[in-house]
Structures are given as structure tokens and as C-alpha cells.
């Protein structure tokens, strides 16, 4: 469904994305993980048209997305959320979601009705007429999700929709995301909350310093020594193994 091929992006001397390739299967939930500054959000920005890649290609259902504007890419069926939430602060929750709903609905009533339905789906029903600025962090994360979902996307890019939420709130949002997939939307997520990644995704790619270092099911990845080193520092995998053997001997 989405093919990323040999993608590279540099900001001055910094290589933010280094020869990254992966393919997202239709109907799946997959995750892009990696330590802070690994280049995950930069990849999202390139897929959604906010940054133009220096090299490589991104194809969505066979169409190259390189050089298209964000609005055009959204029309093609890719919606994204922002890691730093971007609500339309002066508008109500209903009006916020309706902006997304208007993408395929010209009529105001149709858009507002759809906005309401989407809000119910992500658990924002009681907050529909509140100004977006009055929402809590968890509410704003849901609003990001609702706005993107209201555009009826085929592929949904979720950038850390669980960051800053408490465990109870995370437990609430996981079934919502699973429900979205069941309605036929393919999901690619960036996530730091490992519990959510293990729980939701069928496939994950690990990014470090702009390049892919591992790919596989979440449990395969959790055992990958390279991944452990990326997160915990050089030699961490060796030390952990040694510690485990020692514990067994004792």
C-alpha cells in the first residue's frame, strides 16, 4: 500500500533520514520506533508532503508522493496527526473535526453529522461543543486522531498519539485504534509507549540515527541486540546477557 524506497533527507550536515526502505501492507497496523531524534517524525513529514525528500521515492497505491503538497496527499487518502498537537484553538471540537469531514463532504450538515459520529468513536462525544483550547492533553490527542479520521483516510499516520497520557488513558485509546483498523483503515504509528506497540502492531521497524536497524514482529525486535544497544547504549546487550547468565549461575 505504501512503499518507501531508499529515502534520504539531510538538514545541512545532519542526515535525518538515511537510505530508508519499508513497505506497509494494506489493512495492517505497523509501528516505527526508535530513540528520540532517530528521524521518525521526519519520515512522517516526508510521507505527508511537509518535507521533500532529497533522494528516494514514496509510493502510495502506485502513485509517487514526492513533490506533492500536503493537501494533495491528504486528498489521495493519507491523513496524519501531529506529535505536537495542532488544534484549531478558536473553534469548538465539533468545528475542528468538521474541517476534516469537509474534505469529502461539501454540505455543512453532512460534515457536522460526520464530525459528531467520529467524535463518538474516539470518545470525544461529551466535549463536542467545548472550545478545542479547553481540552486536556488526552482530549487534544483524541482530537488530533478525530480530525485525521474525519477525512476518511485509507492510511492513517499516527505520530505519538499516546505520549503524555497516563496508563488508564492509554488503555482507553488502544481499543479505539484497533477499531479504526477493523473499519478498514491501514495504520502506521510512531510510538514510544512500548506497551502499545507490543499490543497493537503486527510489524515494527526500528530507526536509529536516521537509518533502519531492525525490522520484524514486536517480540523479535525486543530481543534484537542492535535495538537494545540503540536504546540503552553501546555494549548494553552484552552486559544484559552477562547479567542474565550470572543470575542463572547464582
Amino acid at each position, binding site marked *: 500500500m505504501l512503499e518507501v524506497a531508499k529515502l534520504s533527507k539531510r538538514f545541512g550536515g545532519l542526515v535525518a533520514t538515511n537510505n530508508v526502505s519499508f513497505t506497509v501492507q494494506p489493512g495492517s497496523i505497523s509501528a516505527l520506533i526508535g530513540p528520540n531524534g532517530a528521524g521518525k517524525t521526519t519520515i512522517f513529514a516526508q510521507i*505527508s508532503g*511537509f518535507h521533500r525528500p532529497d533522494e528516494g521515492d514514496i509510493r502510495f497505491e502506485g502513485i509517487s508522493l514526492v513533490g506533492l*503538497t*500536503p*493537501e494533495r496527499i*491528504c*486528498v489521495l487518502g493519507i*491523513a*496524519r496527526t*501531529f506529535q505536537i498537537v*495542532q*488544534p*484549531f*484553538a*478558536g*473553534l469548538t471540537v*465539533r*468545528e475542528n473535526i*468538521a*474541517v*476534516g469531514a*469537509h*474534505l469529502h*463532504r*461539501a*454540505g*455543512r450538515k453532512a*460534515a*457536522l453529522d460526520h464530525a459528531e459520529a467520529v467524535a463518538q468513536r474516539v470518545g470525544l462525544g461529551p466535549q463536542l*461543543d467545548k472550545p478545542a483550547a479547553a481540552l486536556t492533553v488526552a482530549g487534544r490527542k483524541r482530537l488530533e486522531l478525530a*480530525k*485525521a479520521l*474525519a*477525512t476518511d483516510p485509507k492510511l492513517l499516520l499516527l505520530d505519538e498519539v499516546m505520549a503524555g497520557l497516563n496508563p488508564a488513558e492509554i488503555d482507553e485509546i488502544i481499543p479505539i485504534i484497533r477499531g479504526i483498523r477493523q473499519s478498514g483503515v491501514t495504520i502506521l504509528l510512531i510510538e514510544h509507549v512500548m506497551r502499545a506497540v507490543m499490543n497493537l502492531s503486527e510489524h515494527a521497524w526500528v530507526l536509529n540515527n536516521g537509518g533502519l536497524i531492525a525490522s520484524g514482529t514486536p517480540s523479535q525486535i525486543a530481543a534484537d541486540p542492535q535495538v537494545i544497544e540503540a536504546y540503552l547504549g553501546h555494549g548494553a546487550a552484552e552486559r544484559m546477557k552477562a547479567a542474565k547468565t550470572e543470575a542463572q549461575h547464582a
Partner: protein
Amino acid sequence: MRTPTLRTGWAILVFALVLLPLPLLIKSEFWLTWVTLALFYAYLGQAWNLLGGYGGQFSFGHALFFGTGAYCTAVLQIHFGINAWAGFVLAAVAAGIVGAATGWLVFRYGLRGSYFALVTLAFAEVFRILANTFAFTGAGVGLLVPLQPGAWQMQFESKAGFFWLLLILVVACLLFTWWLQNARFGARLMAVRENEDAARALGVDPFNTKLLAIIASGAIAGSAGAVYVQLFLYIDPGIAYGPSMSVEALLVPIIGGLGTVFGPVLGAFALHTIAEIGRLVFGEAPGLNLVLYGVLLVLMVLFLPNGLFGLGRFGFGLRRRLQRKGGANA
């Protein structure tokens, strides 16, 4: 959602019905002129509100459109003998084209905020200098429109004619803004105002959206210029493209309430009441009204960023809170 929308519709109807018989009731020429001018500034403010209030693009040079409309009708009438009503339509078209050209240049290169404001100010100044230079615009002397009394030439015998014409235009604009608030275009325009990147991520093309808004805003301001010329029968570069018209255009909606249907109307009447009081108290000192406007603008931004309309909402919220408190005590 549906209730406040309908309430706005009723408010427009009541506004139109209350103002309609005013010329028959007001016997004083002074007060009729005063109300007519307030309506004129309301109309100009409505034009600005479309782009500034709903689109979040603060223009400091709406005189650019006003002046273009004014000169367009005057030049067509004087040099080509074209009827003033036709001139009115052509003025809107010309100002719309100037809006399109300005918008295309400015939005193409992504200028926002203060950069947008400065560019519009600069464009208005360039047009002022051009109007000062060319012979067909009367250069520095300006243009005197020949007196041809009669509704057919948009030069009504009494002020009442202008009053009714402006009332129709203002009500038409009220209806247009009301529609805008309940239309896809309006939703997209407000989304761009609130957060351009977030809007793009939802498939909104900010360039097209802002371009349409500046064309509509320019066309309305241009048609205001056409009415002005027939009302005063005179235009010169200072009036047409000078900063005072730009300041009026932006002050009216800011005082009344940005991005609201009735904001510009409320603002125009409030501003002209204050200006009149200022004139009574301080006399006709030149430039004093601009000082007054400056003070007013600072006070509004500090204490009432949502304009007089925000005051109403604030009062309403307070009353509701008091009622709730009263209910809890009982």
C-alpha cells in the same frame, strides 16, 4: 449548533427592519449623514473582516482596494461617460483583480502576519504615488465627479437614497458572512486562520482559500469606494490610498469583534459615536481622531481582544455563572 445559527438570521432580519424606516423618522440632515457614514464604514469593515477576521490575514492597506474601486468608477464616469451603477460593478471587479494579484504574490511566497500587513501597506502606498503621478487620475489635484443628480446615476437627491443603498449592501454582507459561517469555504478559511499546517494536513489548500478571501474582500472594499465617490463626488490620492481609510477598515471590525457576523456593524457605530464625542470635546484638531483611534486600539487589544461582541459573550457567561451560583444557594 443550529440554534445560534438561526438566531443570527433573525438578528439580521431585525437589524434590517429597524434601520429601514430610519430616514423617515430622522428629520435632522446631520444625524442622517452620520448614520449613513456609519453604515459606509460598517460596509468597509465587513470587507476587511472577511479577510482579517475570518481568514486571519491582517491587512494594513485595505485602502488599496477601496481606492482602486473609487478611481475606477470616477475615471470611467469622467473619461468614458460610463454609468455609475455599471461603474459600481466594474469597481468591484477591478478591486477584485487587484486583490487577486496582491494575494497571488503575497500568499505564493507564504508571507503571513506582520509581513502580510507590511506588504499590503506598501502596495497601497505605491498606488497612492501612482495616482499622484498620472494625468488620468487627476494627479495630486484629484478628480471631481460631475454632478448628475438622480438615482440613475447613483447620486440620490437626498441622503436617504444613500442610506438605503448602503443598508442593502450592509445587509447583503451580513447575509454573506452568515452563509460563510455555515459553509465549507468558511470552515476552511477559519481553519487556515487558526493553524495553517494543521489545515493542510486535513486537505485544505491554504493558497486557494486565502486567494478567494482576498478577492472577495477586495471586491467588497472596491464597491465601497464606488459608493464613496458618488456620495462625496470627489476623490484624491490621499483619500483613496492614504492610511486613514486602511485604519478605519481594520479598526471597525477589531472594535466590534473579529470574525463575527455583526462585529463590523457594531464597531462602526461605536467608533463613530466615540469619534463624534471626541470632536465635541476636543474640537476639530487635525489628526486628533487618529490619536483617539490609537488609544482605542491599544485598550481594545489589552482588555477586549474579542471586541464588543466578546463583551456581550462575557456578560452572558457571567450572568449564567451567577444564575448557577444562585441556584446552588437556593
